[in-house]
């Protein structure tokens, strides 16, 4: 049993590691976004941070162009773009519009960012101990470093509750800018997020109904299809037929996740053809960067939840098909951090892939998709899941 001091120190270490991972992945995502969309559009993507034409790198580039090849440096020379992006946002002038509500204007990006990061508190990256600190460490010697921050028994509710607070940042940022386009963007975004929260919750309820728990770790273990020991001490395993509602639920969830994170094709809040850039039109500098951070962190959270619940979590096969992998196989039958992050990165890639493929929906189309199609089909899916739970 850990003493309170050990608990606090351990929590601080875990939070630091987690936040550093998020803050590393988010700028890399912006770089990946340029590259992936570039490749899809038969371009090279970002290849430089400034137009350097002399020097070593340029010499290598000229040489490989002369040899009729695309220079290998083109893959990496764009990498400093993400550092340059951050530096630019830090050094830019911070403008507060005239007659804007200064307090709300400043606090809106913070309200947007805190829930986006707080979601990761209950996400379980690995269902056990990653490593144990050596006993030579001063306070935390001999303590396990777990793959999850907290293991509360209402994890899913926590995710939905915290995620529903993030919308305030967008609405208040739009309102406080004292400008037409941001206000319209904020209102659109609020209506969109509130509408899509219903099918989102309904598609997540499939997982809850099947497993009968709200704990993220237990949910992901149960839905992976491996035998699991509950808190009451009995061994349960998901029936194979439950893979059907889980499979459809994944697609419904990921659709609603696109809408919740305001990504293409549901980025009505920042539709640049109509609303300049929506709710963050008046924002500049670090405040704008916080909105971007929140958006990408939300994407990561949605990917992690989809990977944990529907794609088998820490195991290899998705939709509860892990039972077909015999235990004798050394690596593939065990839970691994690698599988989880592989799924998360694939889903993050899907966000970019869809962005490069689909055009933006019209607003009435967005609402009709949400209310007339997604809510009925998620309800039907939920009924199927409940029937399976009742019978098997």
């Amino acid at each position, binding site marked *: 049993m850990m003493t309170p001091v050990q608990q606090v120190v351990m929590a601080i270490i875990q939070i630091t590691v987690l936040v550093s991972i998020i803050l590393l992945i988010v700028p890399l995502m912006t770089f990946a976004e340029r590259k992936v969309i570039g*490749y*899809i559009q*038969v371009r*090279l993507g970002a290849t430089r941070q400034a137009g350097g034409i002399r020097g070593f790198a340029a010499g290598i580039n000229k040489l490989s162009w002369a040899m009729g*090849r695309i*220079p290998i440096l083109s893959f990496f020379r764009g990498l400093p773009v993400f550092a340059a992006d951050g530096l630019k946002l830090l050094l830019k002038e911070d403008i507060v519009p005239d007659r804007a509500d200064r307090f709300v204007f400043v606090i809106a990006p913070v309200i947007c960012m805190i829930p986006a990061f707080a979601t990761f508190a209950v996400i379980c990256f690995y269902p056990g101990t990653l490593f144990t600190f050596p006993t030579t460490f001063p306070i935390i010697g001999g303590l396990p470093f777990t793959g999850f921050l907290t293991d509360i028994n209402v994890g899913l509710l926590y995710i939905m509750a915290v995620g529903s607070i993030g919308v305030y940042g967008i609405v208040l940022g739009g309102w406080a800018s004292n400008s037409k386009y941001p206000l319209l963007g904020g209102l659109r975004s609020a209506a969109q997020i509130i509408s899509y929260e219903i099918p989102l919750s309904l598609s997540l309820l499939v997982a809850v109904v099947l497993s009968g728990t709200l704990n993220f770790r237990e949910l992901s273990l149960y839905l992976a299809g491996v035998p699991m020991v509950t808190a009451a001490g009995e061994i349960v395993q998901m029936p194979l037929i439950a893979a059907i509602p889980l499979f459809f639920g994944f697609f419904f969830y990921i659709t609603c996740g696109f809408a919740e994170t305001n990504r293409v094709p549901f980025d009505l809040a920042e539709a640049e053809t109509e609303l300049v850039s929506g709710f963050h039109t008046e924002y500049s500098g670090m405040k704008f960067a916080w909105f971007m951070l929140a958006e990408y962190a939300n994407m990561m959270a949605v990917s992690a939840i989809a990977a944990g619940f529907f794609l088998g979590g820490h195991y290899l096969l998705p939709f509860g098909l892990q039972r077909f992998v015999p235990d004798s196989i050394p690596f593939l039958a065990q839970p691994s951090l690698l599988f989880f992050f592989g799924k998360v990165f694939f889903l993050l890639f899907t966000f970019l892939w869809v962005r490069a*493929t689909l055009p933006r929906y019209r607003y009435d189309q967005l609402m009709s998709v949400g209310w007339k*199609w997604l809510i009925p*089909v998620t309800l039907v899916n939920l009924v199927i899941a409940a029937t399976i739970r009742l019978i098997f």
Partner: protein
Amino acid sequence: MSILKKLLPLDIASGMKLTGKYFGRNFLQANRSKKHIHITVEYPETPISIAPRFRGRLQMLRDEQGEIKCVCCLACEKICPTQVITISKGKKEGRKTPFPTRYDFEMERCIFCEFCVESCGFDSIILNHQFELAAYNREDFSIGMEGQFQDMFRVSPVGQHSISSTKNPDSPDYT
């Protein structure tokens, strides 16, 4: 059946398949294939192939002896719709035809219509392939036969990285 078609996102799937195919092809083959499968280039280092009839900046030509080909017939000055060409006629020792003492070209009003080149009976002027026409001062756009920044015989220094205009054998000012 129609409701099933509406429920299944087949169109989205086919679109995703197409973009996924392009991504895979470019991601895996971009560095290996001999021919360039992408449509953009890394501009300053890379030659850009410009269409042969691309209309760049006006440039005067010299013949094999290094003499100016222009004979001051004023055809280009007369046909120019925006009247950006001004020529002063003069004489030079050992030359039968008239010799231009001044040939002024104001690029900021030029519309690059190529009427001057077509009207020229002696093939003494062309529109070259230079597309980097920026300058820092307004005076630099008034180009004469002699000039500090640029003159009528050479490409402007801004275009020194434009490999197309200096290194491309198809280009008229190929050195």
